[in-house]
């Protein structure tokens, strides 16, 4: 393995992600320089943390490694100087983070998920039965986006005939790779403010009604969401929208790449979905890592893994790399639905900011796998995937496929 040149450790470069070429450089960083300083990039200087144990250690010390939007937030792009600062609870430190998170938690309990399960299965079944056989179609736009958009609309009790707006809004919220480009930031603001205005209208309506079980109603009646400034409101909506939309969408698409790369494993899943569908879902989430990174900011000078990190330094946790750390996941690139420790993946983060919607993501993906298995579905790639040019949202623009299923 050749030694990395100092300038080649910038793993935020869009071309690495759009070309699916990021694996070797992360493998090299894990082996040679696991906590690596990049002095110059499109997003400015930053530290990369690439090993599993080091990522966990950073996440377990939120006092030293802040998530606060006041320092720039949770992504590699410093957002505090833009019109969309995303003051969401995942980009806050305790105590405000804990108060807002606690208010939302009842929406994603096992009981709440059980109440959603049959609707998710019905929707998934109907959609799979509607797919065309013998012709090429785009899995992203025909399956992943419709399923996740419907789920979000249900959770928010968002007007059903407007649900097509949710995916583009979510995409613009998550589009951090535009960096400081003034024109693109202005366009981003236009979309995000349009989203905020519609959700504010619905929020005010729910506030005037008795409490219901949907997320907007829960927020409208929670003390911790009572007096939100505009940026906090935008952040609260954006977090739930992106958290429930882009991430599961890209895992549903990543599933298709995995079953094409590992047809024997897919055959085993189809033969025994009761035993293997949940593991297949978890492995898909591990390998897809739909949110590739989270960022923290050092609140003090600290020596970490032998490196001197200064107060104010940007520290980027590469979950995609931790999820391929061979010391934790042997033969890490292999999609193995029977892997014993697959649930230890970092795709949902670790510690106090771990994804609240993890259970819902697993439920949706497991249901999709079970229903595909029930139909003995074969979904074959019919062209090269078109990937997002993003070091944050790790996913797909398009995934051309053909499909066959049993008619028994």
């Amino acid at each position, binding site marked *: 393995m050749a030694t990395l040149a100092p300038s080649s450790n910038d793993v935020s470069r869009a071309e690495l992600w759009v070309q699916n070429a990021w694996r070797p450089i992360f493998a090299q960083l894990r082996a040679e320089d696991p906590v690596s300083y990049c002095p110059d990039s499109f997003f400015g200087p930053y530290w990369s943390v690439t090993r599993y144990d080091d990522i966990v250690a950073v996440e377990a010390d939120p006092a030293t490694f802040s998530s606060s939007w006041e320092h720039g937030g949770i992504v590699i792009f410093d957002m505090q100087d833009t019109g969309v600062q995303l003051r969401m609870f995942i980009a806050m430190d305790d105590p405000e983070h804990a108060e807002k998170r606690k208010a939302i*938690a009842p929406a994603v309990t096992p009981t709440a998920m059980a109440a959603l399960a049959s609707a998710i299965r019905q929707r998934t079944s109907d959609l799979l039965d509607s797919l065309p056989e013998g012709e090429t179609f785009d899995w992203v736009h025909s399956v992943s986006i419709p399923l996740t958009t419907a789920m979000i609309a249900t959770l928010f009790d968002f007007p059903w005939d407007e649900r097509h707006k949710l995916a583009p809004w979510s995409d613009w919220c998550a589009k951090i790779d535009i960096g400081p480009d003034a024109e693109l930031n202005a366009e981003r603001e236009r979309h995000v403010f349009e989203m905020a205005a519609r959700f504010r209208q619905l929020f005010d309506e729910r506030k005037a009604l008795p409490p219901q079980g949907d997320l907007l109603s829960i927020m409208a009646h929670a003390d911790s969401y009572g007096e939100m400034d505009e940026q906090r409101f935008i952040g609260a909506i954006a977090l739930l929208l992106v958290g429930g939309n882009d991430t599961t969408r890209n895992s549903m698409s990543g599933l298709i790449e995995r079953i094409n790369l590992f047809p024997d494993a897919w055959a085993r899943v189809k033969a025994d979905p009761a035993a293997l569908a949940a593991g297949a879902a978890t492995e898909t989430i591990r390998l897809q890592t739909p949110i590739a990174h989270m960022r923290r900011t050092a609140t003090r000078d600290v020596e970490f893994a032998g490196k001197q990190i200064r107060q104010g330094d940007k520290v980027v946790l590469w979950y995609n790399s931790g999820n391929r750390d061979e010391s934790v996941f042997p033969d890490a690139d292999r999609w193995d639905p029977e892997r014993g420790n697959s649930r*230890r993946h970092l795709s949902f983060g*670790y*510690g*106090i900011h*771990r994804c609240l919607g*993890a259970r819902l993501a697993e439920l949706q993906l497991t249901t999709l796998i079970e229903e595909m298995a029930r139909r003995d579905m074969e979904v074959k790639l019919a062209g090269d995937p078109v990937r997002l040019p993003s070091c944050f949202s790790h996913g797909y623009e398009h995934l051309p496929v053909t499909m066959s299923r049993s008619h028994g």
Partner: protein
Amino acid sequence: MADATDGRGPWRTYKCLNCGKLYEEEQGCPDLDVPAGTRWEDLPDDWVCPQCGSDKRDFELVD
């Protein structure tokens, strides 16, 4: 490891592998109205981590 008073061996501590939250039998879990002295095996199967919402299966014995 502290001595227990329920005659069922020393108090134990379990750790959530997804977020690091500890469940200490001696303390219980006041956030979820679990009284002090509640043994791990006496927690219901659908009990979840008070910090991240993970299942009981995501915890491991640490002490």
